[in-house]
């Protein structure tokens, strides 16, 4: 049951990824990308990380895909959002991709994890999480799965506090910089903190 479900989702996801890469129409490509994101979210659910799946849908589909669509709309004529694949690079690109996949797949098949858990190909079932004597991580992980939002919060407030703060700074910097760049030539004395969305809205009203 779980296996066939996985196979179905994975197949769909890979098809969607291929569609993203190959579709000539950019909006179609973005649509395929959304499907891919959704499949990845489903895989997260299968990996018992529902919180991450929700975040994936929220950020990737709700924000990233929309932003990409806006980008496509603002740089192309809507009806003809066609893009060519580059001619000369087609064959080498595909060969490179196949080689990368072959190397990675071969590596995954033969990988021996030095951490003591043995070969990756030998792991056919996820570790059981019943608390065992002297194995603290099982209890930790089972709590993380059952109450993921809370544990994520705890981690961000303790162990990864710095990474969390830095992520905030990163977003601020990206926002500030992107707004400064994407803004039309600023009028003197213009001190209004226009957001990207606001700018788009303004574009939308005065066609």
């Amino acid at each position: 049951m779980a296996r066939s479900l996985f196979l179905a989702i994975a197949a769909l996801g890979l098809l969607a990824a291929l569609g993203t890469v190959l579709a000539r129409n950019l909006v179609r490509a973005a649509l395929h990308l959304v499907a891919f994101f959704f499949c990845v979210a489903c895989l997260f659910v299968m990996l018992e990380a529902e919180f991450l799946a929700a975040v994936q849908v929220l950020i990737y589909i709700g924000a990233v895909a929309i932003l990409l669509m806006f980008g496509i709309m603002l740089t192309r004529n809507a009806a003809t959002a066609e893009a060519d694949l580059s001619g000369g690079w087609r064959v080498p690109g595909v060969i490179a991709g196949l080689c990368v996949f072959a190397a990675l797949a071969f590596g995954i098949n033969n990988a021996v994890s030095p951490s003591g858990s043995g070969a990756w190909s030998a792991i056919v079932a996820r570790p059981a999480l019943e608390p065992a004597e002297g194995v603290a991580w099982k209890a930790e992980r089972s709590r993380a799965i059952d109450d993921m939002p809370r544990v994520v919060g705890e981690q961000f407030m303790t162990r990864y506090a710095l990474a969390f703060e830095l992520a905030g700074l990163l977003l601020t910097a990206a926002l500030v910089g992107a707004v400064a760049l994407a803004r039309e030539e600023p009028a003197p004395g213009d001190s209004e903190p226009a957001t990207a969305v606001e700018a788009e809205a303004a574009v939308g009203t005065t066609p």
Partner: protein
Amino acid sequence: MANDIPLNWFLYFSAAAFAIGLTGVLLRRNAIAVLMAIEIMLNAANVNLVAFWRYGTPAAGAGPMPGVILALLVVTVAAAEVAVGIGLVLLCYRRWRAVDVDRYDTLSG
């Protein structure tokens, strides 16, 4: 659970998605399409991270969920990257009226 999904399957999926994304980066000349291919690669890495978190044995003192935390940070970074990327693409589009990376020709390289 004998009927569980093997770890390898997730890894194969992610490797395939990564390779597809990389191919896309090489194939596409449109900046926004390249951006999409990059997103595929980041997502592939995320699947890896979460699968390793769920299936692997953590090293001592690694914390309960380094993989998931890293994946969340990657999601954040991806959002920021897309915002920045779209901003830059718009900027270039205003200058050249084109989004294809090949068409930008000021720099001699």
